[in-house]
């Protein structure tokens, strides 16, 4: 059936609606050409309406192997062509079936380039997905639905769980799950770590009680300013153990030192963002998904230094503590989707864990 995306400012984009499920959310775009399943199941997109700029989606279907979390947390999915018949040896089910099963509202046959151009110039904004003939009252109601702020609580693991290491004397890492992607856990585990994944609301005391060799602060959705209670706990962890943060974890870490974060106009979402390592002068291509960034100015008088910047817009992409074994990056070294140029960061964490 016919459907449409209506943006807060009244702009309308037309398409076809899968399963007649309506949606409200913050409309963002991702420029990756592959990895639609990884993005769909990346908890960082929680409560957002995800638009893909690549116009043909579903080409290789869906496979359990590529799930980044237990389900898709997106509030809506806007794409060009919805490929009906996927083809790949990994293929288990079609994208359409997956979306249906997950209850993800999907508007397809949309001019997603037009949507992207709009967001690029006007900034990220609220939008709704409705049937073409939706009544005005219905539209108003959907716009009236507030976008939930406690997104971290929605995506975090409800319970603590452990991933055992092969060797008995493996370093133990406690991963604070703010919406962690599976491939981060896998990457840490592949290093040889024993992992304990704890819910976002776990206190510093509880974390330390697990006597970890290092602490990992995960990626996750939303505005870092919305979770001051987590920042308070992180403060208590500083100086106790080596810490590695990714994405939201990086922002929360910065805030725990008193740095500021701010909202980017339309964020960085894609697999092609160049990041310069200021320590080596080398540039790596990174996978990114974030709408907020750490304010470089606010780091000035703190014991933190910027280690990575974005080559396109100069924003902070990584930092480290001047004295302590603490570092974090804004982007996703675990890829999935995206390039694995930055796996070296996991090795760096490993070195810290080993106390080398």
């Amino acid at each position, binding site marked *: 059936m016919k459907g449409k995306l209506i943006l807060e400012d009244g702009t309308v*984009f*037309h398409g076809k609606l899968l399963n007649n499920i309506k949606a409200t959310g913050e409309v963002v*775009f991702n*420029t*990756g*050409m*592959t*990895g639609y*399943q*990884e993005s769909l199941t990346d908890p960082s997109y929680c409560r957002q309406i995800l638009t893909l*700029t*690549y*116009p*043909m989606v579903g*080409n*290789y279907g869906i*496979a359990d*192997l*590529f799930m980044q979390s237990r389900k898709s947390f997106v509030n809506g999915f806007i794409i*060009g*062509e919805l*490929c*009906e*018949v*996927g*083809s*790949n*040896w*990994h293929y288990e089910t079609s994208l359409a079936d997956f979306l249906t099963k997950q209850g993800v509202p999907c508007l397809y*046959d*949309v*001019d*997603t*380039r*037009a949507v*992207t*151009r709009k967001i*690029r*110039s006007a900034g990220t904004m609220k939008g709704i997905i409705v049937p073409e003939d939706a009544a005005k009252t219905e539209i108003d109601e959907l716009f009236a639905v507030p976008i939930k702020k406690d997104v971290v609580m929605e995506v975090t693991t409800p319970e603590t769980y452990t991933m055992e290491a092969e060797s008995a004397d493996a370093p133990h890492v406690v991963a604070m799950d703010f919406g962690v992607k599976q491939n981060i856990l896998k990457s840490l585990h592949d290093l040889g770590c024993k992992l304990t994944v704890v819910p976002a609301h776990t206190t510093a005391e509880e974390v330390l009680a697990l006597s970890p060799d290092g602490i990992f602060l995960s990626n996750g959705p939303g505005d870092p300013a919305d979770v001051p209670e987590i920042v308070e706990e992180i403060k208590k962890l500083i100086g106790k153990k080596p810490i590695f943060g990714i994405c939201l974890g990086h922002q929360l870490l910065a805030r725990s030192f008193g740095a500021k974060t701010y909202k980017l106009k339309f964020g960085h979402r*894609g*697999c*092609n*963002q*160049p990041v*310069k390592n200021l320590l080596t*002068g*080398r*540039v790596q*291509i990174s996978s990114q998904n974030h709408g907020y960034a750490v304010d470089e100015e606010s780091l000035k008088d703190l014991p933190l230094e910027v280690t990575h910047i974005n*080559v*396109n817009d100069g924003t902070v992409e990584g930092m480290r503590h001047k004295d302590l074994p603490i570092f974090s990056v804004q982007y996703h070294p675990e*890829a*999935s*989707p*995206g*390039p*694995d*140029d930055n796996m070296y960061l996991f090795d760096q964490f490993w070195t810290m864990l080993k106390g080398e």
Partner: protein
Amino acid sequence: MPKKENLKKVMVVGSGPIIIGQAAEFDYAGSQACRSLKEEGLEVVLVNSNPATIMTDSHIADRVYIEPLTPEFLEEIISKERPDGLLATLGGQAGLNLAVQLAERGVLEKYGVELLGTPLEAIEKAEDREMFKETMQKLGEPIPESTIVEDVPSAVEFANEIGYPVIVRPAYTMGGTGGGIAENEEELIDIVIKGLNYSMIGQVLIERSVAGWKEIEYEVMRDGNDNCITVCNMENFDPVGVHTGDSIVVAPSQTLTDHEYQMLRSASLRIIRELGIEGGCNAQYALDPNSNKYYVIEVNPRVSRSSALASKATGYPIAKVSAKIAIGYTLDEITNAVTQKTKACFEPALDYCVVKFPRWPFDKFVYADRTLGTQMKATGEVMSIDRHFEGAILKAVRSLEIGVHRLHMDKMDAWDDDRVKKNLARINDERIFVIAEALRRGIATVDEIHAITKIDKWFIHKIKNITDVETTLTSEPLTPKHMLAAKNVGLADVSIAEITGKSVDEIRTTRKSMGILPSYKMVDTCAAEFEAATPYYYSTFRAEQDEVQTSNARKVIVLGSGPIRIGQGVEFDYCSVHSVWALREMGIEAIIINNNPETVSTDFDISDRLYFEPLTTEDVLNIIDKEKPEGVIVQFGGQTAINLAASLQKAGVKVFGTSVDDIDRAEDRERFDEVLTQTQIPRPQGISVTNLEDAITGAANIGYPVMVRPSYVLGGRAMEIVYNEDELRDYMSRAVKVTPDHPVLVDRYMQGTEVEVDGISDGVDVVIPGIMEHVERAGVHSGDSIAVYPPQTLPSKVIYTIIDYTKRLAVALHVKGLLNIQFVVADGEVYIIEVNPRSSRTVPFLSKVTDVKMVNLATRIAMGSTLKELGYKSGLVPPKPYVAVKAPVFSFAKMTDVDIALGPEMKSTGEVMGIDYHYARALYKAIIGSGTNVPTKGCVLFTVADKDKEEMKQLAKAFSELDFQIAATEGTAKTIQSMGIDVEIVGKVHERSSDIIERIKSGKINMVINTLTQGKHSLKDGFKIRRATVEHDIACLTSLDTAWEVLRVLSFMRERRLVYSLAIQDYVGGGDGLA
């Protein structure tokens, strides 16, 4: 300023003539590199033997040498210019090989020249089979297991070790004969026995076969600081087994998961780092469609054909960035030319689908083997862009200009289902059409077609989407819904018209009234994430928003020339680009439409706006509706653009330059006869016949030999010279279908000197920049002849007549721009053969050697200026004191089964130029530059037709006097003996099975002079001899005229210094004149 501060002067090596496998993409790469180096303030010295290119324009480099690409000439130029650096990785394999040779000969060291970009060791590591194997093993990157064996048991043992199927490739055979794929031991033994026989050195290579796997390519960049990025990846529609140059290719990959995409991307980065490449590089993989297993098939340590494609597909200028890297910049220091905001250190994100489709020469080489395999056969390619695969593939098909506008070939309508099914298994240029036909008829499912072809089901499903819509259109009325569905799968109006039985005009009007119009989108490297400055667009029917901002300025559309094919090469791109530049100089916005990714014209910073679209009436009219230009210029885009003139005019579009009616007066035989009568210019006597009897009577009246050609080409050899009635009967039955609608033209064949002229006219005055005399007498296609500027043998009376006729014709045809005329001079009389009121193949050559900006003038005239206003007077521009020779270059080594004998049908793929103050040296340069292997001693074999024997006698004598041994077949030998010359008689091929062939194989014959003899045996024999010369790289001259000129060169070689070079700037500037 370059980052490497020691660099002041850099030498760039081009790729030479266009051959199959090395085409216009290197003109694009080289031009971009030169401009990129110049903008850094470097002095650029360019060497390239190909005059048809933009890169050899005198404003592209400070010093342009149009000289043979041999180490000797390069050393001469280096010794003279003393460059600080040499950039060779943008000149294709030719450039790379030269760099290696110069380094090996110590030339670079001797003159202190730094090899820029990728270091020599990296080149060797990628190119040397053993070193490559070692490097990949060290990295843990798998390459297909292979070994060389000399007996059957070793082959079997190895195959058992690695598993079947295996590929068997005999070493050193003619045209790769004797190889094959073995699925089991029995087949292997059979193939190896044959292969060992075929191989001249008794060796065969056994390699794991990955035929049927997915073929994936990555374009990778690396800088001196070890930053690496991939520009794009590409997936071949055709699985491994078909050369990537002959494959339909999509970008980005469509059927790879993110995991597979990243796996191969990471492998590419590991490889480029390990090799140490600085600049662009291309890596090809075979990916198992059923596991994560892959093999590295090939790595090209340089800018390649795929790089040009990737640049156009993404907007990322690989050649430009490679050049900057070569002079010391790192990727994060180089600005992204598209966004002007971001840096070159990023990976382009595409939000569209790109399809590349090869253009094969099988329309010209109708007897060639159309099977596609490991040897590339395409001469060119087209690229198309849409938001979805269906649209892109159909645009590509329309762009090919092979007489189809959808995935349907008329001839297959006559095939029964069985034949269609059988053809699914044939891997040739028509496979995709067969697949569509099978789907259309519903005689094979997607799964069945996949099982036969191994083409990924995703692609087959997409084709089915198209044929399904076609089927609906045949049975249901054309409602807005169906019209939209048709446009949404990319069907052209003409296709919808064909399917529904309506007229194209009707479809177009209906469609527009339904509000179904295309939108135009931008190619911006970043999927709209950043605002971009590139005026590079494509159309799509599946979009809501059109983002092209048109302006109200004066604007004109220049139509490009489409894919490179035999007869329409890079010359026409040269002309289109110059026309665009002329318009921009005049302050008029220039918009170009073209679909060839290899060319300079489709570089996004050439025109004010580039539309990457098919050159068909609908696609062009859609852009005209959008842009509303003052008009279009058609005279520079070859026949492609000329063919659109009438339909565009009919649609109300203003065609600038010579009018459509006058073009028709030149092209239509009867109307042209009227022009000739009116201007009192003679042409060889001829008639148009509609049946065999008339042809026989007519030919008898005219007198044999006659030149015959169809007004309608059926698929046979189109044009032939026939010497008697039997041959005429044979031709009429074999090559043409003669009906009242399709007459055959019978003309007197005049065995005279052919002369070619390019002129510029405003309809009143006519400027003739130069006259070119052909070495080969009339009967050899002008594109295959050696052309000499200025004429060396024509009396002034003839020249005056030619000037006079040219003026008369230009005025009579009201030419507004360029015209090209071919004359034949016989017994002192000048006859006209044909007039083309448009740019020609010789325009770049002539522009360069005469320094007349021909296209610029022609564009200004087309826009309303006069020659007087432009400061030109009527008449011939005084000839220069130097001589320039244009020689054809063929790609026969790539096309087995093609006869190399020169004739009225064009066969060359490219050309080179030799320029010098001495005619013989200019000729030497042209012949050496063309790659002809001229021997300085040894044995020359003569085998000629009876009609040529008298003339051949003198030639044999002359060769004998130069101490060549002479060999000949019996009849020819008798004639030679009559001159008292020692001659060895060799048996004809069919008499003593392989005498001549054996001698050629074993190097006992060093050159062959052979003219075409009619008759069953002779034709076959001659063919075998000629093909043997190709396989063994021996010069074979099929025209006595060429032979005489080679002889002249050989004499000259004994007396004079051969290697002497001047830049084109020196010649036209008159400097260093009497050296």
